[in-house]
């Protein structure tokens, strides 16, 4: 028995060639790629297919006022801790289509898309790996762009596209990739602002709700690797055209999204809350809580200090008041919204700041009563998720300490 027949007995391999061959409209790949505006470019490492588009920034789809973008970009950069002196012309938009959705060194980027601003225009360039052997040429071509750029803009690229392209440079032994290049990953502000506002935080969800654009006849991401393999095995071309479009729209959407996010952060910094999507305001408040106490208090007050609906903002609000030394106001809110959290803060306040141990003990007792009373309907969601045992131990420790302090004084 020869090796092959033995192997076929051992394991039935699932990747059987597909039964039906789809209609071939084009005689060969080159003809097809040319028909969708591909051109073969010559590089030092070989020739490779490139697709280029140039669109005016004020195009009706983009609707981007380039001078406004130049101005508005700063707050976004600063909120993402990227050097604020970076100009929009220094940004490189970047997105890959790959042979697998997971990571590892056997995952090839077969379509590498980049975008950049050139004067009043936005350019996309896409490089297609017709053959696996085209990879070094593509990487070489891209290297100049990466080296020139001062930051890379991507969507979920921090965990996927960037590590993957680094891997490709290493495997192909091409040195010079700027490993420390700052990354402006739009999924980060996207999540911060729009978490739980819509069904998810995918790029296409943002397109739908923020940009107001829905793709027609788009190839879904999960189908992309198989489509490339079909092209490799059978020369099936049509999906390749769709993938090239898909990747192009990913890049363009990133550009538009960056413009919109810039406007949002600009409005945030200028405290123009009415400009913003109402549903996103509490997310923005949470973001500000981490980065800017003063702006946070301002937004929280704008949102209204009737905290019956959003208790987590209340906690953050009162803590920020405490941080800003606005004690009287903080105490007022803790007393207005009694909860385990409030009791804990009040007890701490009276024990350590006021040295009023009796009062502190009163709040501690109130908390313990609440914890021990099973009939007590603990209303807000924060309290439902707490570790009651931990709280109990903490309050009990506090109680004995306070009792001891009171005993010593009397």
């Amino acid at each position, binding site marked *: 028995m020869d090796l092959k027949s033995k192997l076929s007995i051992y394991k039935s391999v699932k990747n059987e060639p597909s039964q039906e061959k789809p209609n071939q409209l084009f005689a060969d790949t080159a003809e097809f790629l040319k028909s969708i505006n591909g051109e073969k470019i010559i590089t030092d490492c070989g020739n490779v297919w490139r697709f280029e588009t140039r669109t005016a920034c004020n195009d009706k789809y983009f609707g981007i006022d380039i001078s406004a973008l130049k101005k508005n970009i700063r707050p976004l950069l600063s909120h993402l801790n990227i050097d604020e002196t970076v100009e929009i012309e220094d940004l490189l938009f970047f997105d890959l289509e790959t*042979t697998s959705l*997971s990571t590892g060194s*056997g995952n090839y980027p077969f379509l590498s898309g980049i975008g950049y601003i050139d004067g009043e225009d936005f350019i996309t360039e896409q490089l297609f790996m017709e053959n*696996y052997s085209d990879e070094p040429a593509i990487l070489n071509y891209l290297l100049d762009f990466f080296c020139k750029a001062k930051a890379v803009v991507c969507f979920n690229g921090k965990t996927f596209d960037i590590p993957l392209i680094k891997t490709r440079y290493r495997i192909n032994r091409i040195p010079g990739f700027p490993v420390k290049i700052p990354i402006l990953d739009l999924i980060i502000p996207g999540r911060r602002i729009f978490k739980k506002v819509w069904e998810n935080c995918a790029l296409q969800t943002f397109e739908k709700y923020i940009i107001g654009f829905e793709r027609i006849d788009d190839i879904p991401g999960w189908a992309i690797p198989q489509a490339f393999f079909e092209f490799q095995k059978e020369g099936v071309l049509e999906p390749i055209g769709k993938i090239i479009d898909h990747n192009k729209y990913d890049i363009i959407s990133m550009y538009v999204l960056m413009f919109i996010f810039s406007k949002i952060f600009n409005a945030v910094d200028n405290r123009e809350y009415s400009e913003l999507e109402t549903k996103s305001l509490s997310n923005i408040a949470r973001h500000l809580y981490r980065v800017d106490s003063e702006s946070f208090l301002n937004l929280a007050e704008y949102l209204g200090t009737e905290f019956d609906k959003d208790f987590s903002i209340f906690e953050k609000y009162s803590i920020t008041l405490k941080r800003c030394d606005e004690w009287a106001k903080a105490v007022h809110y803790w007393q207005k919204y009694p909860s385990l959290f409030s009791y804990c803060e009040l007890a701490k306040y009276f024990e350590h700041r006021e040295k009023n141990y009796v009062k502190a003990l009163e709040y501690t007792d109130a908390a313990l009563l609440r914890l021990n009373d099973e009939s007590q309907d603990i209303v807000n969601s924060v309290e439902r998720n707490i570790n009651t045992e931990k709280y109990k131990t903490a309050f009990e420790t506090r109680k004995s300490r306070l009792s001891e302090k009171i005993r010593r004084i009397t």
Partner: protein
Amino acid sequence: MNIRQLIDYLKNYPSFMENVKLWITKEPIEAVYADYPENINPLLKEKYIAKGVQKLYSHQRLAYDHISHNEDVVIVTPTASGKTICYNLPVLNYIIDNPEARALYLFPTKALSQDQMTDLNSLIDQLGKDIKTYTFDGDTPSSARKAIREAGHIVVTNPDMLHSGILPHHTKWVKLFENLKFIVIDEVHTYRGVFGSHFANVMRRLKRLCNFYGSNPVFIMCSATIHNPKSHAESLIEKSVTLIDKNGAPSGEKHIVIYNPPVVNEQLGIRSSSVKEAAKLGSLILKNKIPAIIFARSRMRVEIITTYLNEQCHGLNIKGYRGGYLPNERRAIEKGLRDRTIDGVVSTNALELGIDIGMLDAVITTGYPGSFSSMMQQFGRAGRRNDSSLAIMVATSSPLDQYIASNPQFIQDANPETASVNPDNLLILMDHIKCAAFELPFGENEKFAEHLSTTSEMLAYLEEMNILKKTSGKYHWMSDIYPANDISLRSAAQENFVIVDKTKKSKVIGEVDYYAAPELIHNDAVYIHQGQQYYIDNLDWDRRMAYAHEIDSEYYTDSQTKTDIHVIEAFETLNKTFFEISRGEINVRSKVMMFKKIRFHTHENLGWADVNLPEIEMHTSAAWLDFDVDFLESLAGKEFAGTVLYSLSYIIKNISPVFTFSDIADIHSLHQARSLYSKKPAVFIYDSMPGGVGLSEKIFNSLEDICAAALNAVRTCSCAFGCPGCIGPVVDGASDIKHLTISLLEKMLSASQIEGNTVH
């Protein structure tokens, strides 16, 4: 009594001594010392001296000298001979002067790697040097992984993690691969059979990547005593290796005893249960506060002995230890043994490996553990450097154990086993060629190993299957699958079943692997964990979960499996006058059909019930015998032909491990009244691992010796008509199967070859 008094007591205790088949006393051994090398870093030397290592043992010095000449070495070391110094000393010494250098340490299990870390870290702390050592395994938090990849000087991991977590992501480990100076592989004797064959392929991939990144690391390997440490190490890394086997470490006086439980029924040849005898001896030792370990062959026996010992030794802390316990539970037991809060432990071979449990004074091995080196490893658990120790093997009634009990010189003369691997097993090789292609494209003329001229054929096959794509002379990975995830180095490890105790709250109590699940955790099985019995209410096969509740049962369960065999291809056949022996490849399908309920202590059968679970299928290698129907029927009569065939398959399977140097569980046997292949009565002996690791080929080649040993075992067995100690359990009232089997074996040995060897 202390250990020496106990040894004297046993020597003078007639009812013990009358069952002792062999008592060997090994004299204490003096240490052989050597000086520290002159060029060693003075601080490192100072710290070792401060740890109590005034001088090196001779083998430690020898290892250092060879390693510093960039030689690949294998060091054969008994338990507690200071093997870690053999690699830590040269590695640390090099890294102190070359802070860019990296080392990779491989231990066969996670537990072992964590154990080694503690030791290494304390030394590095004392050195005050910036040498970073990290464990990288499934438990490493993802937040720590980046730092380990970039900064770890010594990365400690296991083969599974190297295979699925490091090699496929090699670009993230550039620093490690570019600067890899040492690869330490401990316990290389465990890399045998399927696991070893996988391991050798993982080494091929590792070397391929080192080559890509331009490093040429020195391999430092350590092995327990096996027959062929040098050639085994060489077949794992496919390089020539220097052997260091002159041990300089001292040891105390050792007593090795082979104990055969007394016959309680002459007629049926039934001996007292080895489990009971082991528990009896164990409780005698433990009640005297002598720290001891009792090894048993199966998880079930571990649980039964633990139960018996806890009944007999009130007030003592005795634990069970085996695969299937959760890691925390295991760590707690190991720690308890080290700090002596646990008095004794009953374990499967899980504790054979070098996990640090301190030195014990006594070991009982219940049943020959399947291989001589495994037994020596178990015996090695007892023995301090300056005191006596006792190791007892209690024979079971299995033919192999009885063969050893009646030929105890076997132990005296035995060569430790030959560890063998078959890295070119087609299935295993194919798996790793895929992984390697994923890691780096294959050049069209590249060979996966120097002798593997079939590489290109295999690559072409993978291209035809659309897994690889060839362009410009290179084969590229063309699948969205991450191949390492689908390939387990230890068959079935990824397919573990989880057991959930629903008695109070749902709580995971342990795991069982894929092949063992149908036998151990079928519906209504009694599953024992830490001496506690659980009743399996429901086995959810698809979700790989079993739900159980605690019970207090008077019986345990024992399942029965039905197996079918189809021959795929015969490679070679020898024609004898009335039978043929062949070897080749087969397809085995097995299904657990029923289980029996066996009462504790009396071991009587209380009833049975059906098991309804899916069939498990496997391709493997086999050797088989086809008999002429007429011959067999004239020998045994139509009625008993099948029974004789069964007895032949039973004794061959049980005696073979002596000749194949393998574990008894690695070989299966089956008889068929009419083989689907030859249409004749047949006996199949086959590798129990998918693809096989060459055991059946060894059986094919040494059938004559096996039959002679089998004949000897049946003839010398004390039973009258056959017993589990020779030809297997015999149904009452059957014809004299024992003598029929003897005569079959005699005829087979005298049969002449009628035609030449047929190679298909």
